[in-house]
């Protein structure tokens, strides 16, 4: 058991290494076929296969089937990046009267942050001042981006309860856009002043969009990790946090997190990231350990406890985003829909 746990810790540390992995480093892992399958599967679930393609590009000892699978992922990631640029061009036209700021995956690609290479993203996230939201929505409709397709319940969930807009789909290309006026839902138990983020955003080098400062990108990644509830992408999200943290100084990050009022949250996630990628850091408390096991487990076959950890993580994310009076009916409704879909 300890051996397996050691192996996974080692593999996680290789996934954040700035230089490509050498044959000697790979040999240390001593990956037999079963372990290769587990690594490929875990990476595929976390959308990190294209990252591994990049990390292993100089290795000569990678089995050919593993190379093929990583090549598939790399083809997909390359095309997604190209689609993203095409979508951004369309969005620039639609949103030119407004003040959009790119977030998350799109921002990482445009800035070429350390975590960007091989990173797969499905949606584009854009932040706008709240007062521009209604006009922007109409402008997007005129440019072929539509968000009116979802069910009445989902429209209600987004607009009335979460005070967000449903995602937009570009009719021609199928690209998906999430338009935000804040990082946190209005119903969230934490609050921060988003104007602070908008004010510090600067124009990005390649596109006409603004992007948040690196500290803010890092902080957003930390908050997203706690809120998302999606443990399956935990490895990817924690890796984002870890690599972004390394691109800013500790002092600047602390100062900014303090200014935004989310210091405790950022410190906690940063600690989990440090411990997970074998770079030292202080010991984790019981809750951090639980999150670590949910997001980036050090064994392959998850025990009942690990499943509970993942469930707890999922519920915690929801708990942070929604008060109980909204949360319980929402979860019940979603469970019922899933059951109905399974029946058909």
């Amino acid at each position: 058991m300890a051996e397996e746990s050691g192996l996974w810790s080692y593999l996680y540390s290789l996934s954040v290494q700035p230089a490509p992995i050498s044959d000697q480093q790979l040999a240390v892992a001593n990956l037999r076929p079963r372990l290769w399958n587990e690594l490929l599967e875990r990476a595929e679930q976390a959308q990190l296969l294209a990252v591994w393609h990049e990390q292993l590009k100089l290795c000569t000892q990678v089995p050919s089937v593993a190379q093929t699978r990583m090549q598939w992922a790399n083809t997909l990631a390359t095309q997604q990046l190209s689609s993203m640029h095409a979508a951004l061009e369309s969005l620039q036209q639609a949103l030119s009267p407004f003040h959009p700021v790119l977030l998350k995956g799109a921002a990482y690609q445009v800035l070429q942050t350390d975590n960007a290479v091989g990173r797969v993203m499905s949606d584009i996230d854009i932040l706008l001042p709240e007062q521009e939201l209604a006009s922007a929505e109409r402008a997007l409709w005129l440019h072929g981006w539509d968000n009116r397709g979802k069910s009445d319940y989902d429209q209600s969930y987004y607009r009335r309860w979460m005070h967000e807009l449903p995602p937009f789909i570009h009719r021609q290309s199928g690209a998906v856009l999430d338009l935000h006026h804040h990082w946190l839902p209005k119903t969230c138990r934490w609050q921060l002043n988003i104007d602070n983020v908008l004010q510090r955003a600067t124009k990005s080098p390649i596109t006409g969009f603004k992007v948040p400062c690196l500290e803010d990108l890092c902080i957003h990644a930390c908050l997203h990790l706690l809120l998302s509830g999606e443990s399956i992408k935990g490895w990817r999200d924690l890796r984002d946090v870890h690599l972004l943290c390394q691109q800013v100084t500790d002092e600047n990050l602390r100062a900014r997190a303090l200014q935004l009022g989310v210091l405790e949250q950022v410190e906690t996630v940063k600690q989990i990231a440090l411990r997970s990628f074998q770079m030292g850091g202080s010991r984790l408390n019981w809750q951090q350990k639980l999150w670590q096991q949910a997001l980036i487990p050090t064994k392959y076959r998850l025990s009942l406890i690990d499943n509970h950890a993942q469930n707890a993580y999922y519920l915690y994310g929801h708990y942070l985003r929604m008060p109980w009076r909204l949360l319980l009916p929402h979860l019940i409704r979603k469970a019922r829909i899933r059951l109905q879909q399974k029946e058909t």
Partner: protein
Amino acid sequence: MTMEKQQTYCLSEGINWRIWQHELVLFNPFDNCVHLVSSQWLRYFERLAQEDAFALDDFLDLLIDESLAEQLWQQWLQANIIRPTSTLSSG
């Protein structure tokens, strides 16, 4: 979609084609789309590919002998074969 007179355009970067007799197939790496067009437009694509930027008026002058010039402009713009050179927001 309104087009301001001072907006400039270019042929989509990397666009390439293959020609067979009277048919031309364009491939646009921008969106990975293929388009089947008449080979009579080849000389215009070759000309446009040489320009860094052109305005709508330049395009219409180039296609001055074509009755469908305006229509072609719309089609090729819709299809991303022709794209605006810059839409940087001032904000």
